[in-house]
């Protein structure tokens, strides 16, 4: 295998890693503040993508010939803003009321909410059962160096994802909101006693996590030029696994987990002599081994640096 192809595989893997990391960070944030696992997260990714798709269809359908950049900006704002509100609402009406109930109930209720979201999109979006073409709004050119193709759009998406992850890191470590999130994560009672609004902080955390999910959905749509109502299922499972191998509750763990999972899948498809059909088997089996080796995740949370 020559260098160009290795570079190609690396870029492919990095792109996957960014999408997985964006999803995994959400899982880990929710677990950090409330010790809950929100299983509808993958479907929020999908809903974000469909919100963006509907926005672009609406703008294009209205007949106004807007430049792609404006359409794209509108799609991002609608999806990310919409899902932030949606995530906060889910926290308020589905997760927080069950705070005193066993965590298993939250897991179940969000699992069901995910199914409701998925089926609702399938039924109410026009021809929702079919895979939907996602508008190609990014520049379509590419740098070609031998066998290595680096597309402009992939590069933009890669950078966008990395910037989003860095922004979340800055919010959590450098802002008052981040301080509040970290305080609630560490000890909700003490945090409340110190005057940190518990509910507000939880809602903000869910808003951030869901906004990231929406971003992942839009990036996913722009990268693959196609979205479907059930795209959230596998993304949810992978995002969750990534968060767990990284160490649930640790943001850096989730990012690391996302890239590890992407690397495992790529290795599974490229280097294993067996058919690539087994790449997911290989990746998930490797996750099982990693978890047996480090049950708390690679970057296991210490209570001091939780979230």
């Amino acid at each position, binding site marked *: *295998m020559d260098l160009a*192809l290795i570079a*190609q*595989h690396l870029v*492919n*893997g990095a*792109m*996957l890693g960014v999408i997985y990391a964006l999803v995994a960070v959400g899982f880990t944030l929710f677990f950090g503040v409330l010790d809950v696992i929100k299983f509808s997260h993958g479907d929020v990714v999908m809903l974000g993508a469909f919100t963006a798709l509907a926005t672009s269809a609406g703008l294009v359908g209205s007949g106004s010939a807007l430049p792609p950049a404006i359409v794209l900006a509108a799609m991002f704002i609608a999806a990310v803003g919409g899902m932030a509100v949606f995530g906060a609402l889910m926290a308020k009406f589905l997760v927080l009321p069950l705070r005193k109930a066993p965590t298993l109930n939250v897991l179940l209720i969000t699992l069901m909410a995910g199914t409701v979201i998925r*089926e609702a999109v*399938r039924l109410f979006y026009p*021809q929702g*059962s*079919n*895979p*939907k*073409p996602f508008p190609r709004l990014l520049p379509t050119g*590419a740098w*070609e160096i031998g*066998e290595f*193709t680096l*597309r402009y759009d*992939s590069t933009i998406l890669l950078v966008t994802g990395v910037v989003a992850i860095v922004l979340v890191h800055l919010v959590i470590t450098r802002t008052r909101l981040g301080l509040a999130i970290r305080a609630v994560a560490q000890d909700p009672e003490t945090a409340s006693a110190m005057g940190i609004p518990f509910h507000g902080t939880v809602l903000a955390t869910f808003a951030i996590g869901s906004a990231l999910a929406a971003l992942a959905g839009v990036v*996913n749509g722009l*990268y*693959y*030029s*196609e979205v*479907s109502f*059930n*795209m959230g*299922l*596998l*993304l949810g499972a992978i995002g969750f696994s990534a968060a767990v191998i990284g160490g649930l509750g640790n943001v850096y763990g989730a990012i690391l987990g996302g890239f590890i999972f992407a690397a495992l*899948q*790529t290795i599974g*498809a*490229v280097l294993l002599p067996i*058919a*690539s*059909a087994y*790449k*997911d088997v290989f990746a998930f089996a490797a996750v099982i081994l990693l978890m047996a080796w480090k049950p708390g995740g690679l970057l296991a949370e210490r209570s001091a640096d939780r979230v």
Partner: protein
Amino acid sequence: MGVRFPVAIAATFALLCTLGASAKDTVKIVFIGPLTGGVAANGLGGRNAADLAVKVRNADPKAKYTYELMVLDDECKPNVGVQVATKAAADNNVIAGVTHYCSTVAMGTVDVYHRFGLPVVVWGAVLPDITYANDYKEIHRVNGTMINQNETAARFMATLKFKRWAIIHDTTDYGKGHNKYFTEYLQKNGGQILGTFGVTADQQDFSAELTRIKELKPEVLYFGGITPLGVRIRSQMDKLGVKAVFQGTSGIISDAFVEGLGPLAEGVIAFREGAPVEKLPGGRVFMDQYAKGGYSDDPEAYGPFAFAATTLVLDAIEKVGPNRKKVRAELNKTADYDSVVGKITFDDHRQNAVPLITKFVVQNGKWVVWEDSEYASGKRSLVRK
């Protein structure tokens, strides 16, 4: 008392007989297909076509019975398919069925129909084993199998002077079957296979497989699988700069495939058994009636087969009455039966011997019969520069 009771029975019986003469008995048949999930478009098209066939019959004053269509969703999942098939087969009021688009589901349910003695006609699934791996008198099929399809596909592609292939197939029975038969016939026609990649049916990312394929430099990428995956692979080929011709199977011949890809669908080639509906004597009538039916979804590629299967079942019931065993025997005998998909004749495994395979290519956002396309006339070329 002892006298009056039999009299009452006799009176009731007489009354029932007169009623029977004026109002028709209702006979129930079942349609099963994927109404939800990734291939729901095909299932809904089939459902509408079956519904249309029943409505047409019910509107016919000469029909002996009033028909009721029970519609069940197999979700293209074998476990769900077995569940709904059992539900239908266990219901004694159901006389016959028009069942399944997905091969994996049909494979799971044939035993159920056999056990309960429910005669069914498969309307869309193409795996040969559905009819050939058993000898169940209950199972019939109006559409052809992937054996005929791939034989023609391999021979035809060889005439276009292609030599080097890479194969991606999904790892269901459907995708594996296509891989097996296409590989077999391709080698007979002198084609070379550079690499074969199995992928799961819900996979999203194919960049790793396609990067490897790019390295192998095939002229044609053969895809054995159905629409949702086909859309993803074709779209990602473009992203990674894989310039091979995209060759599919009957599983991607759907409006959803073209809609999902837009301009990228141009020049995609695929094969399906049976003549194109528009070219059949009854095809125009079917399309007109379907349009008048006011259905919100397209009939899709297999709608005409569902229509033909339903009409075949209704004709059998009309002829021998609502009795599963008699209907089964009647269906078994089917030969030279005129339908919207052409003549139907069942062989010893109750498989319709469809000699004709039609070649399709996407041109300007539509599946066009190869011979009518600008690709055949040489105006356009499949090979991308």
